[in-house]
């Protein structure tokens, strides 16, 4: 094999598979097509086998994995489309543009389903902020998301941020987009009907990011400098026009299918559309509107210029579509047509310059050998850091001081610095926005119901125990939705991992998926979309296995939403779930002992299911004055967060104080408040639901009081609000 082929990232075995499939050697252009379509990023060749473990069906699922986004039915003919995607490698190289173009890509995925994008969420991972490089990356990423999301008019309503040395060389930028559509508007990324036309719409095609997909399918090592594709620059202004124009185009019955151009550009999107429709596509390369007329066919086909989409429209209706896109000042051209032969044919001035069978190009990539081998042999081991158990208690540490210090850690503290840079209100649907609760709540104009959305995941748990970590990631998302009173409906996930050819990495990958799958089955929740990002490692560092879980839920009546914070003095504070558990994996151990602990408290899925039902009933009956799940930082942090909302303190009647009880982070717990006169109704419901509970105390005053110690809410709030200061 020549140097050229190797540089494209194809293996010898893959090259042979191509020759065997074509019955000849590919030419340079064809090889480029294969390099992109068969890249890990586009083909999922190493992950496919494992992704099959995830449950994907359910009675509300209108579209599961396999399209640009998943779609779930809501009420009154409304549906929600959603997906999360990573832009890790580009953001590590150029945080501003990398993150910005990540936002653009996921928005177009939602657009492809016929939906209007109504919300964004972002999940970010950086090194510790004591490292200036981590701070610089964070500032760049946040301003990139702010730049793009704000301009394009989609509110950024949620997400999370963690800092950990594991991400020092490979930051993670996962963005989720949520769209709303009527069931009748649903579209697919499909090409059908011989003779129908293929249109390219949006921005001009330039020399951007050629080979971005193959770049994202390799480790980030120093010498990639030379291989590094040009940084792609997004144009949110064009993206906004593309949204409006495409929403118009979606109203025309002659639109057969549409697909965004992401990684791989024109070398992958039309082929995927043809694969779904069981047809072929021929494109005429000279018809493509270019930014630079000197581009070669190879560059045109592999360009990853942003803000472009491909449409398949009924023959004869082209003019209608051309008009719409021209009205919005966008580039638009008929670049090809649907053909009967199931090939992807590229023509240049009438001459065929590349032609490959669709079935070989899309989905034909053989599973790499290492997957089979690793799958058989790999075990955990090196993923687990040696860490000491800290079952012993704290000695003379003050609980108040410990709490204050935890609240000041960037992972726990307020992310206001971030989300105040995001327009989280545009479209005027954001009833509960960032920083206000466990999940964001969006109203649907003219409807009684509302949507709740959440995105997040904890890599440290997965590094300790990938199965339990994967399971928790799903549980936590469920809790976030239950806290606001919403019923979880569907899941999207982004699996961020290191190099999959390392057996332990692949082992952890499988464990995480098994954990997520078991949790999803317990709640009968389908995975409807997702994304895999491998190769997040450098010469010296691997990221933690980091599944990021996005979830959408339904609040049947927006008036039944439950606030997070303490509402009234005298309200009674209850803990739902068990009080006692291990401290392993907690932020507390990290901050005070620089350790992880030896094990995570295992999650009790039976109890999870009971809590699920009970929390829904409590919300429907409007019994609760507030609810908040216990997650990062543990019990006291959750209580402090409840006190910040209105500056109301609490008398806590806790006597069994231990690090595990106060700062352990196992899930399956909520802290709720109830009016004193409804206490009996609450406890009755908890008993009949089989949920263990205990009374923690009373909402009162302007301080938290615990076992004789007392600290002003305002003092804690100061620590919390100043945790992120970049």
């Amino acid at each position, binding site marked *: 094999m020549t140097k050229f082929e190797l540089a494209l990232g194809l293996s010898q075995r893959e090259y042979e598979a191509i020759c065997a499939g074509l019955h000849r050697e590919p030419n340079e252009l064809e090889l480029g097509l294969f390099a992109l379509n068969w890249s890990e990023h586009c083909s999922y060749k190493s992950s496919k086998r494992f992704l099959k473990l995830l449950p994907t069906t359910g009675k509300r699922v209108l579209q599961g994995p396999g399209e640009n986004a998943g779609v779930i039915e809501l009420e009154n003919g409304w549906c929600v489309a959603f997906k999360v995607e990573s832009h890790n490698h580009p953001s590590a190289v150029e945080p501003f543009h990398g993150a910005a173009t990540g936002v653009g890509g996921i928005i177009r995925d939602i657009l492809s389903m016929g939906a209007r994008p109504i919300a964004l969420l972002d999940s970010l991972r950086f090194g510790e902020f004591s490292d200036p490089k981590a701070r610089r990356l964070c500032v760049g990423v946040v301003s990139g998301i702010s730049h793009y999301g704000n301009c394009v*008019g989609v509110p950024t309503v949620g997400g999370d941020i963690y800092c950990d040395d594991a991400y020092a060389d490979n930051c993670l930028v996962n963005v989720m987009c949520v769209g709303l559509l009527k069931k009748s508007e649903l579209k697919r990324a499909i090409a059908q009907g011989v003779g129908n036309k293929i249109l390219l719409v949006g921005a001009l095609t330039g020399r951007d990011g050629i080979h971005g997909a193959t770049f994202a399918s390799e480790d980030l090592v120093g010498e990639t400098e030379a291989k590094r594709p040009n940084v792609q620059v997004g144009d*949110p202004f064009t993206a906004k*026009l593309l949204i409006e124009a495409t929403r118009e185009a979606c109203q025309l019955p002659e639109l057969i299918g549409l697909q965004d151009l992401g990684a791989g550009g024109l070398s992958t999107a039309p082929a995927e559309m043809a694969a779904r429709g069981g047809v072929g596509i021929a494109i005429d390369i000279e018809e493509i509107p270019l930014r630079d007329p000197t581009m070669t066919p190879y560059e045109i086909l592999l360009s990853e210029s942003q803000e472009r989409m491909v449409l398949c429209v009924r023959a004869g209706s082209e003019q209608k579509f051309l008009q719409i896109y021209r009205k919005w000042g966008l580039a638009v051209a008929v670049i090809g047509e649907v053909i009967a032969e199931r090939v992807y044919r590229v023509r240049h001035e009438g001459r065929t310059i590349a032609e490959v069978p669709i079935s070989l190009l899309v989905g034909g990539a053989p599973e790499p050998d290492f997957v089979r081998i690793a799958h058989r042999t790999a075990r955990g081991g090196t993923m687990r850091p040696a860490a000491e158990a800290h079952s012993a208690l704290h000695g003379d540490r003050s609980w108040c001081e410990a709490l204050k210090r935890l609240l000041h850690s960037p992972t726990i503290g307020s992310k206001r610095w971030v989300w105040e840079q995001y327009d989280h209100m545009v479209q*005027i649907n954001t009833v509960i926005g960032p920083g206000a609760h466990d999940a964001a709540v969006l109203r649907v*104009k003219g409807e009684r119901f509302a949507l709740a959305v959440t995105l997040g995941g904890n890599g440290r748990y997965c590094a300790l125990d990938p199965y339990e970590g994967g399971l928790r990631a799903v549980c936590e998302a469920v809790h976030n939705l239950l806290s606001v009173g919403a019923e979880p409906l569907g899941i999207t996930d982004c699996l961020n991992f290191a190099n999959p050819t390392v057996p332990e990495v692949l082992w952890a990958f499988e464990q995480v998926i098994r954990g997520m799958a078991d949790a999803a089955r317990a709640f009968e929740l389908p995975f409807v979309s997702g994304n895999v990002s491998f190769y997040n490692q450098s010469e010296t560092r691997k990221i933690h296995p980091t599944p990021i879980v996005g979830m959408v839920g339904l609040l049947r009546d927006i008036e039944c939403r439950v606030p997070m914070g303490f509402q009234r003095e005298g309200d009674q504070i209850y803990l739902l779930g068990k009080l006692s558990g291990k401290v392993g994996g907690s932020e507390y151990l990290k901050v005070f002992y620089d350790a992880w602990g030896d094990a995570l408290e295992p999650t009790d899925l039976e109890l999870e299911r009971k809590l699920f039902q009970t929390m829904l009933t409590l919300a429907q009956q409007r019994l609760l004055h507030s609810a908040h799940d216990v997650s990062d930082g543990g019990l006291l942090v959750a209580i402090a967060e409840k006190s910040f909302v209105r500056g109301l303190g609490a008398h806590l009647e806790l006597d069994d104080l231990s690090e595990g009880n106060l700062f352990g982070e196992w899930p399956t717990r909520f802290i709720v408040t109830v009016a004193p006169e409804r206490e009996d109704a609450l406890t009755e419901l908890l008993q009949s639901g089989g949920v263990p509970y205990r009374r923690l105390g009373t909402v009162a005053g302007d301080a938290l009081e615990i076992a004789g110690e007392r600290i002003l809410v305002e003092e804690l709030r100061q620590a919390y609000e100043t945790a992120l200061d970049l």
Partner: protein
Amino acid sequence: MRAAVVVFPGSNCDYDTYYVLKDLLGVETDLLWYRETALHRYDLIVLPGGFSYGDYLRAGAIARFAPVVQALPEYIARGHGIVLGICNGFQILTEAGLLPGALTKNISQRFICKTVKLRVENNATPLTQLFRYEEIIELPIAHGEGRYIAPPETLERLKRNRQILLTYHGENPNGSVENIAAIMNEKGTVFGMMPHPERNSEQLFGTGAGLKIFRGLVHLV
């Protein structure tokens, strides 16, 4: 009463503003494409928030040349009705010279989205007539270029003629001179404000102070 909300390429609060006027207040309202110039049929023209032309070069710098903006001076001179610029709309009006001063990058150099407190400095205008003088109200802001500045003579004139309508109260989020958040022209026919009244027009989102601004403008007293 008939209102228009202008749609520039890149507007993104156009529909929100339309929704408040049309669906919440029941005002006959059109979304008006930026190429339109027949404005006389409208009593109120709103230039909404967003990023017209991507806010490239300077916020509002390109949009001020749009046909609809070019037609505004005549609309105003003939007294056909009132013009309101919200956020990006305010930026366009200052760029076009229809309101004095300029809106520049926030002192922090960052975009900022939050609810702020404002003080009503003049309640004898259509925009503010439903508030008490010096009343403190809450409205969201969302902008990267909202720092109002103007030469001293202009500021003098603004104060003398009571053209300053709203000022930031408590905290000045962007560094605007004299805490200025909203102004009008001398005749009281052109209004510009950085805060977004359409984002606090329902109880779901706060106090509903924004709806009072629209009610005042369309004389639904």
